[in-house]
């Protein structure tokens, strides 16, 4: 069946009762919340009661496709997955590429809302309108690759799309992931553990329908123009050539490379972890695009020497080679590929896994923990074999070390004590991604207020570096002057962060990859709004688009406020706020509490949030039309 982009359909699945229910999204919500992450955020707020156990039946796993996902809009294959995070106890959204979202829409579904808890392992099979909950005991315990292959074989369709957890998700590792389309990770915050807590091993999707935009000719003409603009962006070229890890040499040269648990900002030999090295030395064997993307930043790699085992896998991304490579003091390409493959197959977030291990390495070297705590593992910086073994033990929660680190760095530091929170690179319970927030003040603010914890995957302020004319133009648009394209400045950071929040949220709600709107800049609020108007056949402008982004950011804030989060939770890891950059061009820089307070004051005022608590005020919610959604938590 070929259908329009609206009305949008929700498939509710209750795994306790084993039943399903179909529901329509109110049409006005598509305009107000844009779709994807926006509507999913509203559903999460409404469906998951405050104080719910993240690993209990009341938590919901919500999968929201972008409103333009499945159309010809460029790089629009992203899908949002939401739940209450077991790692942080707060709001969690992860975004995943691949082809799952488009397939879901071709099957006739825009949202999945999965609640309850099955008594036995199951998988959810969706073939158009035929939805079945099937036994999965035979898959339980399998790695993501094996389970994916088995499902395709069983269902007789090698092209079906899957979302699968590995042993880590089954075992409740608090940073376990869901692997989608075999190679695309929905990774942060323990979303895999939520799926595992419901005894849901996998979701399979086969769709045979299609989507029709309302005004086809202008829609596709504009989409084509946007593709051409994207192709011209230097960022796009580098993403194709080298993938995200192409940034390694630049970061190392600028003294911004996260190394040895953020205690260093450069690392000799780090180029071995770069996309350039993987291309030139023959590790890269292929590239692949997500749905409707012409950039193809996704990598396929192989090992050459097999020193740590044979690798034939996707990735690794920049954050992965930093977290499992330089942060652990390792600049060995083969080791990084093995660690990446292990995380993918076991189903774990590489960022959190790497930082949990690098915290343990620093603790070991400081003699805060010993080989008695690591079950004999010599967990020192540079020990690649120890990293690989630690990953396996974490996924199975094996021994003292595996069980300790499986709970994330915050809980591990709480348990070990002895001041080890000072080198636990986390805030709100989430391990920080490898951006040094001491020297980039927009990033510092964005990370501190990020509802899921400190990373670049809810808001990215890359433009503040001003490294391209497009980036400087973005900063000029926001602030009125491109002189603010300097990450060391604190002025105008609140404006820059809030604008990027809105754009990031809108991009994800429509299904766009944020690389196209906040790393490259060819996708922008104006052309996103125009595409939306053509897609829906209704007037829709840039202001409505940005308001949609603002609404989802506000709902996310209210979700956390209901869970008890307050201003004091808007912080950065201890090391970022108390230890200065040790060397390099940014030596001595820091984002301390006083500086962060100044940034937060500006940011809260701009949002209309209470300065003391950080909770949105009632009048702010009224202005945004959100009183009926989250008015109960107004500050």
């Amino acid at each position: 069946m070929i259908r329009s982009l609206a009305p949008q359909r929700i498939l509710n699945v209750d795994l306790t009762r084993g039943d399903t229910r179909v529901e329509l999204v109110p049409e006005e919500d598509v305009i107000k919340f844009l779709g994807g992450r926006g509507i999913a955020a509203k559903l999460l707020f409404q469906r998951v009661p405050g104080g719910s156990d993240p690993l209990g039946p009341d938590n919901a796993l919500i999968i929201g496709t972008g409103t333009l996902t499945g159309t010809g809009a460029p790089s629009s294959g992203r899908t949002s997955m939401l739940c209450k995070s077991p790692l942080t106890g707060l709001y969690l959204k992860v975004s995943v590429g691949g082809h799952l979202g488009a397939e879901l829409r071709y099957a006739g579904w825009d949202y999945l809302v999965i609640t309850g808890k099955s008594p036995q392992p199951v998988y959810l099979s969706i073939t158009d309108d035929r939805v079945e909950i099937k036994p999965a005991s035979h898959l339980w315990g399998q790695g993501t690759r094996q389970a994916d292959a088995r499902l395709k074989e069983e269902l007789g369709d090698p092209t079906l799309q899957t979302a699968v957890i590995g042993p880590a998700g089954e075992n409740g590792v608090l940073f376990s992931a869901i692997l989608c389309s075999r190679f695309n990770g929905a990774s942060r915050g323990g979303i895999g553990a939520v799926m595992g807590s419901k005894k849901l091993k996998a979701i399979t999707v086969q769709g045979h329908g299609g989507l029709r935009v309302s005004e086809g000719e202008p829609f596709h003409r504009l989409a084509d123009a946007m593709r051409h603009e994207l192709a011209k962006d230097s960022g796009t070229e580098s993403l194709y050539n080298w993938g995200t890890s192409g940034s390694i040499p630049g970061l190392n040269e600028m003294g911004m490379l996260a190394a040895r648990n953020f205690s260093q900002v450069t690392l000799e030999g780090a180029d071995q972890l770069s996309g350039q090295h993987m291309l030139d030395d023959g590790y890269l064997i292929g590239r692949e695009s997500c749905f409707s993307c012409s950039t193809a930043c996704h990598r396929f790699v192989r090992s050459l020497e097999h020193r740590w085992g044979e690798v034939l896998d996707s990735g690794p991304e920049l954050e992965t080679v930093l977290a499992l490579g330089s942060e652990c003091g390792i600049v060995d390409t083969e080791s990084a590929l093995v660690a990446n493959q292990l995380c993918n197959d076991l189903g774990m977030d590489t960022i959190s896994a790497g930082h949990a291990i690098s915290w343990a390495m620093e603790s070991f070297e400081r003699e805060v923990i010993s080989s008695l705590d690591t079950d004999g593992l010599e967990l020192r910086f540079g020990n690649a074999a120890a990293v690989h073994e630690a990953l396996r033990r974490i996924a199975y929660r094996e021994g003292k070390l595996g069980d300790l680190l499986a709970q994330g760095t915050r809980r591990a530091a709480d348990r070990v004590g002895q001041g080890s929170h000072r080198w636990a690179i986390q805030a709100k319970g989430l391990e920080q991604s490898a951006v040094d927030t001491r020297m980039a003040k927009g990033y510092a603010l964005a990370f501190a207020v990020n509802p899921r914890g400190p990373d670049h995957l809810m808001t990215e302020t890359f433009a503040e570096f001003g490294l391209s004319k497009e980036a400087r133009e973005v900063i000029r648009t926001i602030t009125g002057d491109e002189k603010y394209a300097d990450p060391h400045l604190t002025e105008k950071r609140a404006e820059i962060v809030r604008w990027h929040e809105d754009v990031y949220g809108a991009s994800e709600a429509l299904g766009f990859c944020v690389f196209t709107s906040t790393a490259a800049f060819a996708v922008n609020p104006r052309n996103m709004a125009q595409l939306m108007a053509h897609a829906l056949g209704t007037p829709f402008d840039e202001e409505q688009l940005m308001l949609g982004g603002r609404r989802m950011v506000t709902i996310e804030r209210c979700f956390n406020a209901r869970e008890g989060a307050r201003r004091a939770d808007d912080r950065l890891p201890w090391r970022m706020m108390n230890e200065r950059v040790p060397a390099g061009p940014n030596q001595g820089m820091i984002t301390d509490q006083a500086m962060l307070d100044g940034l937060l004051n500006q940011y809260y005022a701009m949002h209309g949030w209470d300065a003391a608590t950080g909770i949105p005020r009632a009048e702010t919610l009224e202005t945004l039309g959100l009183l009926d959604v989250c008015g109960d938590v107004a500050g």
Partner: protein
Amino acid sequence: MERTAGIQVIVRTFGLRGRDSSLTRMPTGLSAGTTVGDLLAHLRTRARPGDRLASVQSDTLLVLVNGRPIQYLSGWETVLRDGDEITCMLKTAGG
């Protein structure tokens, strides 16, 4: 320009000369007052056939002087000083 009285700098390139996926480090002598723009022009004249350096557009390059992007200095007009370390590579994005 090269090896005349003046200043000595270190030039590092990445990904611009054949298969240099590790940093190529070149001590280079320059005349006093040389700017980053002058240096790039000089490097282009020395590029080998097939080197990306010969044809790459300037605005696609990330150029650092002592680790600082030239956008925070005086751009292509940044005047080099004795002992400076200059890095040239293609811009990258995404993470």
